[in-house]
């Protein structure tokens, strides 16, 4: 393909075709063959989709949308109204920065991925080869996809939010990393990181070796202790003949001759066998001591009454109880009998009382049947007696009361006897238990006495009644015997020590040899640690120096760019007193840190623009940094700048200054700039129309949007020379 453009103006993008991509549905071809393209239109008409299309074409993704996607499989590339199964396509004709030839690049795909095709006069490449060709054509040295993306977003596409992010939310270290990369100095940081890694590796090695060293030190200390102990044993070892003689003498006086015999009669290891016997005797004596204490306590807890007595008492109470229970039966029968008599008498007297009460009112002087005279007074008196309490009833009632009381007394007595019987039974049970426990203890004592028989255990074994008086005798014997056994044991140990003296000398030789070997190993390891520590010390200094000097290199490279952002900042002059923009480049926590600064030169004050500036002023500062890096980066020399609505929040003075600045920007790079404000787009077009060279300015007006995509009105303006004001003044004068 041949170049359609003269060389008067920088043009990278000649045209762009967008289809099924985000806001675009039907294919639209957009002419871009001018060094200044002003994109205008109200919000929502497709301007951002236009910039997204260029970004997607070059990077294969849209950075600002990556973090906003709720689901990874959310389709954010293909137009919502595109036919199902279709793919997004963005195609551009771009100029190869090195050859000046035109290349057609086309990206097709969706959210899952995309593929790039690149077509030149000679060849057609697809995939990774096409990506590499495109990056090279755009004048960017890196072949790394991520770095290319970072360069593009840091120096070619200005989206206000992203640039502000660079200024205000990136860490100083992250900003340093990006800037040093853009300045082509990333190799220094990579080198320093590698050096740092080696420092850490050496430190880890020291740590590891140091642990070994500590272990070796511990081993040496232990071996030294073994040697010391061995030497002490040799020094304090007794003379064999003397110790044997002493043992013989003492064995007889202690009455332990049988142990000496046993030692002599055992061919090998007689001393050890005797020591084991002594140990066994000692254990039995300890058991005996414990048993005596237990028995004393047991005898202290002896019940008041013995088993025979308690059983006799219980039987007596039981007999009496049975007798009383028999009497109670009789008492209850008598009580029942009295009750029945009482009932009968009561019934009879009640009938008489009733008759008397009826007869008294009817009483006359003469019998109504025989007319015989009646002694009414006498009869009335008798009848009235019948109405009162009858002696017979009183007697029956008293008898019943007496019988009832006798029964209750009997029952009470029985209850008392039952309680007594329970107590007697409990006493009997306790006496039985005590007897049983006594029997067990005596069995234990007999068992121990049997094992200690050879040591002359006190005899004879007494009856249980005399046992309590016999226990102190046994206890005295036990403590005396234990003392004798201890003495004998010490003498046997002396014999053993005297016998083992020559063996200990051999052992000492072996221990000393081992100690020397361990000391030598320790010294070797100490040498390794010392060597590594020396290397680490040197490496630490080297890393520190390299970081410091790397910061100097980056600072010097940035200082070279200082006039560029100073130039840009002077043109826009957003702040009345902070009239200089800079970058502080420091070593912070052993890492490079880049800190943006605004400076009041007269007052010699520094502030961070993201903190000290208003939003509009900070936008201007961000714009200056961005443009400076775009125009002066040694690594990312894109031939174009895409500015998506950079004029937000700027006042008239800033806007006028920016419009003037654009006149100069277009001379260096193809400028594609968007604004949503019609007034500003008019101003930009007016300012950008050429008045000297025959070059074009294109205005793309996104006038409306429907489901087919945006409607774009294209206006191309050529050069419009102006009449000189000074010339006309000269004519006037």
């Amino acid at each position, binding site marked *: 393909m041949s170049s359609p453009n003269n060389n008067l103006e920088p043009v990278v993008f000649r045209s762009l075709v967008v289809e099924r991509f985000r806001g675009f549905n039907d294919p639209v071809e957009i002419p871009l063959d001018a060094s200044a393209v002003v994109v205008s239109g109200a919000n929502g008409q497709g301007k951002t989709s236009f910039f997204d299309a260029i970004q997607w074409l070059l990077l294969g993704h849209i950075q600002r949308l990556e973090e906003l996607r709720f689901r990874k499989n959310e389709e954010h590339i293909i137009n919502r109204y595109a036919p199902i199964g279709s793919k997004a396509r963005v195609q551009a004709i771009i100029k190869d920065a090195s050859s000046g030839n035109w290349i057609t690049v086309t990206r097709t795909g969706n959210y899952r991925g995309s593929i790039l095709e690149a077509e030149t006069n000679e060849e057609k490449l697809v995939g990774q080869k096409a990506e590499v060709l495109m990056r090279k054509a755009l004048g960017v040295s890196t072949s790394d996809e991520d770095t290319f993306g970072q360069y593009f977003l840091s120096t070619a596409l200005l989206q206000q939010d992203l640039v502000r992010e660079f200024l205000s939310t990136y860490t100083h270290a992250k900003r340093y990393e990006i800037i040093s990369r853009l300045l082509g100095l990333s190799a220094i940081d990579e080198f320093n990181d*590698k050096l740092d890694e080696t420092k850490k590796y050496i430190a880890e090695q020291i740590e590891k070796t140091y642990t070994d060293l500590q272990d070796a030190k511990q081993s040496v200390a232990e071996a030294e202790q073994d040697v010391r102990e061995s030497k002490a044993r040799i020094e304090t070892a007794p003379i064999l003949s003397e110790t044997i003689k002493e043992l013989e003498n003492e064995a007889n006086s202690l009455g332990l001759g049988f142990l000496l015999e046993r030692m002599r009669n055992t061919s090998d290891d007689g001393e050890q066998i005797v020591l084991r016997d002594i140990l066994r005797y000692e254990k039995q004596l300890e058991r005996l001591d414990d048993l005596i204490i237990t028995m004393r306590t047991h005898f202290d807890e002896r019940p008041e009454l013995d088993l025979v007595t308690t059983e006799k008492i219980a039987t007596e109470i039981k007999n009496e109880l049975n007798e009383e229970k028999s009497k109670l039966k009789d008492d209850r029968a008598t009580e029942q009998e009295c009750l029945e008599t009482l009932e009968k008498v009561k019934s009879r007297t009640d009938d008489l009382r009733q008759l008397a009460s009826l007869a008294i009112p009817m009483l006359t002087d003469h019998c109504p049947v025989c007319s015989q005279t009646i002694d009414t007074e006498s009869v009335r008196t008798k009848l009235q007696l019948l109405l009162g309490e009858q002696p017979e009833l009183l007697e029956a009632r008293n008898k019943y009361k007496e019988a009832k009381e006798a029964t209750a007394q009997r029952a009470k007595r029985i209850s008392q006897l039952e309680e007594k019987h329970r107590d007697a039974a409990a006493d009997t049970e306790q006496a039985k238990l005590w007897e049983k426990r006594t029997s067990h203890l005596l069995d234990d004592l007999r068992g121990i006495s049997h094992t200690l028989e050879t040591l002359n255990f006190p005899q004879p074994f007494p009856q249980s009644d005399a046992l309590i008086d016999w226990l102190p005798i046994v206890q005295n014997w036990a403590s005396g015997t234990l003392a004798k056994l201890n003495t004998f044991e010490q003498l046997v140990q002396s014999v053993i020590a005297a016998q083992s003296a020559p063996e200990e000398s051999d052992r000492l030789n072996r221990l000393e040899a081992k100690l020397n070997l361990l000391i030598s190993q320790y010294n070797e390891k100490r040498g390794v640690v010392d060597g590594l520590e020396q290397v680490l010390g040197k490496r630490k200094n080297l890393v520190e120096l390299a970081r410091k000097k790397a910061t100097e290199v980056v600072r010097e490279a940035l200082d*070279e760019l200082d006039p560029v952002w100073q130039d840009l900042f002077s043109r826009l002059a957003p702040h009345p007193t902070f009239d200089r923009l800079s970058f502080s480049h420091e070593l912070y926590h052993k890492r490079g840190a880049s800190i943006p600064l605004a400076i009041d030169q007269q007052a010699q004050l520094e502030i961070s623009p993201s903190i000290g500036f208003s939003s509009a002023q900070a936008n201007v500062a961000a714009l200056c940094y961005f443009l400076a890096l775009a125009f002066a980066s040694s690594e990312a020399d894109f031939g174009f700048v895409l500015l998506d609505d950079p004029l937000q929040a700027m006042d008239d003075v800033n806007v006028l200054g920016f419009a003037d600045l654009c006149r100069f920007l277009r001379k260096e790079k193809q400028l594609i700039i968007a604004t949503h404000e019609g007034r500003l787009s008019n101003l930009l077009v007016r300012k950008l129309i050429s008045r000297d060279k025959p070059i074009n300015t294109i205005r793309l007006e996104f006038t409306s949007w429907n489901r087919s995509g945006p409607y774009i009105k294209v206006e191309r303006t050529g050069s419009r020379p102006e009449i000189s004001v000074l010339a006309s003044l000269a004519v006037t004068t």
Partner: protein
Amino acid sequence: MAETPSSSTRFKEYFTTLLRDAEYDVRPWELVKGMDPVVLAENPYYVIAFQIFDIWSDLIKAAGQIELALSQIIGKQKETAKVWDAYLILVCRTELHEIEEFNQFSNLVYNTHRTRKIVRTGLGDTLTRLNEVVKPFISLTKVRSTAKGRDPLHILRSKMIESGNVEPGEIEKLIAIFKERGDLTNV
């Protein structure tokens, strides 16, 4: 004995030089009758009037008259776009002090009704302050990092050796191994 030019004259001469170097047509012009002539500079895009004052009160008094006169002479050119590109550069050698003066400064700069005005104060006798003032009217400063095309590790190596705190052989060896993607541990 030749007379020493006044400070105002020297500033105007310096302005003239800067703009002529940037290929502007420059000449003095009595824009307001009875007032010191301004310096007028023009190229196909801009018409710029430059005036310097010793004190702020003189500047604020004259600003309106100069602006009006400038817009009138451009207005005489029918259908010209330059009415949008007329700039007034007003500089003052002394600093602002009073609040009233700062208010006047803001009102003057932000009133873009007729022309855009670039106003700077506190220039004293420093001619080079004009370099910043005329920046919007001249081409961008062109700088490319000198690191381009140079081996950054070579620059680092030189700086480390210059410091005298490292053995040249050691750092050279480390860099060489790093470039070959080797292990730096055992150097």
